[in-house]
């Protein structure tokens, strides 16, 4: 007896693209549609093509959920950098160290603010504050990058933190804007 159903590799691909809670239900729904409706009407090639298109349509959602994790990791990284910079400023006490410590505190605060905005998805105040913070991060990281490039003896850690802040600001804005359009953050 000939097997009617989507090819096993396509089912495995769909399984991989779906979040855990939807795996069985969505695969079941599409299996039902494949066997009940599409296979008899479209023929095997077009039915498989239909199934493949449906499978591919889950890719954007998978990408979105994957992009959330780098942002959290970046926030944790920059928060730790902020703590470390602040601690070093107070330890070294170079001229103008209070201003530098303020910047370090700002980096830490922005990381915590972004994590809070991601966690408390429905707070528009946190979202707006976090977006405002992103603009400041762009300014801060841009300034640090230009200074590092111009410097005769550039400091690697400043460059690394500036790049991390730049990525954090971009990912935060992308996540917050997407959340704003769709009504949720991630």
């Amino acid at each position, binding site marked *: 007896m000939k097997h009617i*159903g989507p090819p096993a590799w396509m089912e495995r691909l769909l399984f991989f693209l779906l*979040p855990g809670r*939807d795996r*069985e*239900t*969505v*695969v*079941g*729904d*599409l*299996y*039902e*549609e494949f*066997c*009940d409706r599409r296979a008899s009407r479209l023929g095997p090639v077009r039915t498989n093509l239909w199934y493949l*298109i*449906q499978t*591919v*349509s*889950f*890719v*954007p*959602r998978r990408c979105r959920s994957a992009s959330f994790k780098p942002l959290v990791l970046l926030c944790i990284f920059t928060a730790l950098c902020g703590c470390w910079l602040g601690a070093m400023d107070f330890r070294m006490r170079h001229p103008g160290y209070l201003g530098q410590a303020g910047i370090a505190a700002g980096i830490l605060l922005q990381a915590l603010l972004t994590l809070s905005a991601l966690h408390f*998805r*429905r707070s*528009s105040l946190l*979202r707006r504050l976090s977006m405002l913070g992103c603009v400041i991060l762009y300014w801060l990281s841009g300034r640090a990058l230009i200074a590092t490039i111009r410097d005769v003896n550039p400091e690697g850690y400043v460059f690394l933190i500036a790049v991390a802040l730049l990525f954090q600001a971009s990912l935060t804005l992308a996540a917050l804007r997407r*959340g*704003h*359009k*769709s*009504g*949720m953050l991630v």
Partner: protein
Amino acid sequence: MFLRTKNNLTPIFRHAYIVDMAELLGTFEQIVLLAVLGLDDDAYGRAVLHDVQQAFHGGRSISAGAVYATLDRLEVKGLLCSRLEKGTPSRGGRVRRFYRLTPAGASALTEARNTLERLWHGKPWPLEVIS
């Protein structure tokens, strides 16, 4: 209450209420909610997908990914709730997820409809656009 509407607020705060754009329902979200509402107890993913496709002028192809993503989003927003039921042999024994409109979902749909009706009120129909 999951959904904040002007009516949910204490009267003293009502004048200061600013509509959060993220809480407004998009057209596609409204279509999915209406499909779930129309299907009543039979609103599981595949049936919702069919109804949504029918809503777009008789069967325009809407991807399953878009519909399931919207169902998930509406559930996260608290506008839908779901329950699992045992699968049948026609779907390889896999469980089904049935969706139902929550009170918050009903009030969000009502609000969306009222807003549109207010905006359409007094406008000529069909629209006459001078080019």
